[in-house]
């Protein structure tokens, strides 16, 4: 039975206490696992933080990581987040140099993907997009062709779908 290395995700609910993030990251690095992307923020309960982490691993390794996370005192729950069973979003802010030829295609891209012009600067614009990982990759390809100068990309956030 194959167990390929691929990007897998974990959702972790933790106590909102100092150095919880360091502890989670330490669990990964101490065992040689790499964090590909991470997003963390407090939930509506100020004592609880939700963290989404994606990592490159096999199925067996991710099961092991999850057991080790659940062993941490500050972790309330750690579980697999399967790609197909959740809604995924990432956000980007990108700076694109503005020339006359690029204005129209940029506006078209914003329109097609529901992006926003966030700031206009002399000679450049900052735009915002959100979408799932594949959409973001496509948008980034297009933005690069349009002369993207700078980029910030958030970690993936996800919400499990309710089972029918």
């Amino acid at each position, binding site marked *: 039975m194959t167990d390929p290395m691929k990007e897998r995700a974990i959702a972790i609910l933790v*106590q909102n206490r*100092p*150095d919880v993030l*360091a*502890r989670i990251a*330490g*669990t990964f690095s*101490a065992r040689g696992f790499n964090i590909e992307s991470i997003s963390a923020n407090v939930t509506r309960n100020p004592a609880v933080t939700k963290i989404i982490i994606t990592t490159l691993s096999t199925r067996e390794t991710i099961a*092991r990581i999850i*057991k*080790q996370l*659940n*062993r*941490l*005192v*500050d*972790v*309330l729950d750690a579980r697999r987040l399967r790609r197909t069973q959740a809604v995924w979003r990432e956000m980007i802010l990108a700076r694109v140099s503005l020339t006359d030829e690029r204005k129209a295609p940029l506006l078209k891209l914003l329109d097609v993907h529901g992006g926003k012009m966030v700031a206009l600067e002399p000679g450049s614009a900052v735009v915002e997009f959100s979408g799932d990982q594949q959409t973001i990759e496509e948008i980034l390809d297009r933005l690069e062709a349009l002369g993207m100068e700078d980029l910030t990309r958030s970690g993936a956030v996800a919400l499990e779908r309710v089972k029918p």
Partner: protein
Amino acid sequence: MEETGSQILFSAMKEENVDTLFGYPGGSVMDIYDEMFRQEIRHILVRHEQAAIHAADGYARASGRVGVCLVTSGPGATNTVTGIANAYMDSIPVVVLTGQVPTSMIGNDGFQEVDITGITRTCTKHNFLIRRIGELHGTVREAFRIARSGRPGPVLVDLPKDVIQAVADPDGCPAAPVFSGEGDSADLEGPCREALKLLSAAKRPLLIIGGGVILGKATGLLREFAKKLQIPVVSTLMGLGAFPGTDPLWAGMPGMHGSYGANMAISRCDLLIAIGVRFDDRVTSKVEAFAPHAKLIHIDIDPVSIDKVLQASVSMVSDCGPALGALLRLAEGGLTRPASEIRDWHEQLHRWKEERPLRYCRSPKIKPQYVIEELYRLTGGRAIVATEVGQNQMWAAQFYRFDEPNTFLTSGGLGAMGFGFPAAIGAQVACPDRTVVDVAGDGSIQMNIQELATVVHYGLPVKVVILNNLYLGMVRQWQELYYGRRYSQSDIAQSPDFVKLAEAYGAKGLRAVRPEEVQRVLSEALETPGPVVMDFQVEPEENVYPIVRPGAPLTEMVFGPSGTNA
């Protein structure tokens, strides 16, 4: 009524029934030590912070209680890191209290400041940095709870000086925060029935037990279970004493330096029942060849251990006690299995033991194994034995038979030289009426030799057995067997006169150079009402046998120098 942070700290410890601290003062903990002057708690002043943590660890191993140590910030704290990692690897409940610079100075490279919570984040079960006096009491209580619950482990509490010096009304403090506890014990009945079914069908069942049975205080239930169902028992290094070494069902210690009988038992059994073990590589050697014919039943309190090294047919994430209790209850009616089948297996195990017992050759020089055998005999097998690491550790494990839990104190997971002597100190403090011995090598004993001052200071009658071979023995053995006898940096013939060294500290020193002198030296030491150091000048190039080469199957044991297979 207002109390200082120091007072709140001592109150919290009193509520936790802490009667002993092992520690060493310093700038950041001056106020705690000042308050201690007014308190009734016993404090053992060691001579190196590493000894403080190892002593707290030895205290915990010998007594089953949480060990506590107190050290200052900066170098005081970093000196405990080895001991913390050691407690972490062996799952020992200790609380480490470290001083810290005032909260306003944290992160500014202050005098004697280190980020000890950062440094120990991955080798503590959990750690805390207390930022406000209001959290002090609750956090200290919580630290003890975390240290002793579930799979025990070390918890560090970092105490900034301003928090300790602050005053507060303890009644106004928030209640102790309740952290998510270890998961509730899973439903055991289902897996227990499965396990007993497998047991009924097994013709060659074997119990392998480890440190978890001792930590779980389940040795009584284990003995009942093994005897009731007549299952032979092997024990890892950490489990020695959980099952009596003198019992007929005892089949030895398996692993790299395990006995022939134990390794053969593992290799031929058809059902392996593992309780409180984590399948460390020193035990399994080549994993694919470990218990190749056996189904595995694995009981452990930590889900991380299950299916980590070996896949289990039946697993239970549970404290050993409740699991063994459930198995015993369900096995009330006995097992439906012909007695003759299991009798053949018992006879086989007996034959293996007889074929190749643990042994050594006599010689005009003192053999280290002989020293251990005599120690065993003269202490009636009832001493608490701490060991250092290396050959001394292996010979102690092989030639001293432990019948009770909490009597063999050894650094198993980390293998930290210098552990034994301070651990023996901690054990002696915990068990003042027992004979406590540290089995050491000439290399290891020098790592915390300064603790001779501690044993003399408090009149702790610890007996130190130095198996003095003028080498870093285990390193030399590997260099002999696997590195063409190139003894690179393992020669420590330049060592002190241990008798004079003991006397310089005010302890008694004894020496034996011939086998005939061994018994006399040991007897005299055991009858001396104070600390004694014994220098046994042993055969320098004696090896620990059997030995399984790393990565080889347990069945490929070497029993003597090549060409002899003695």
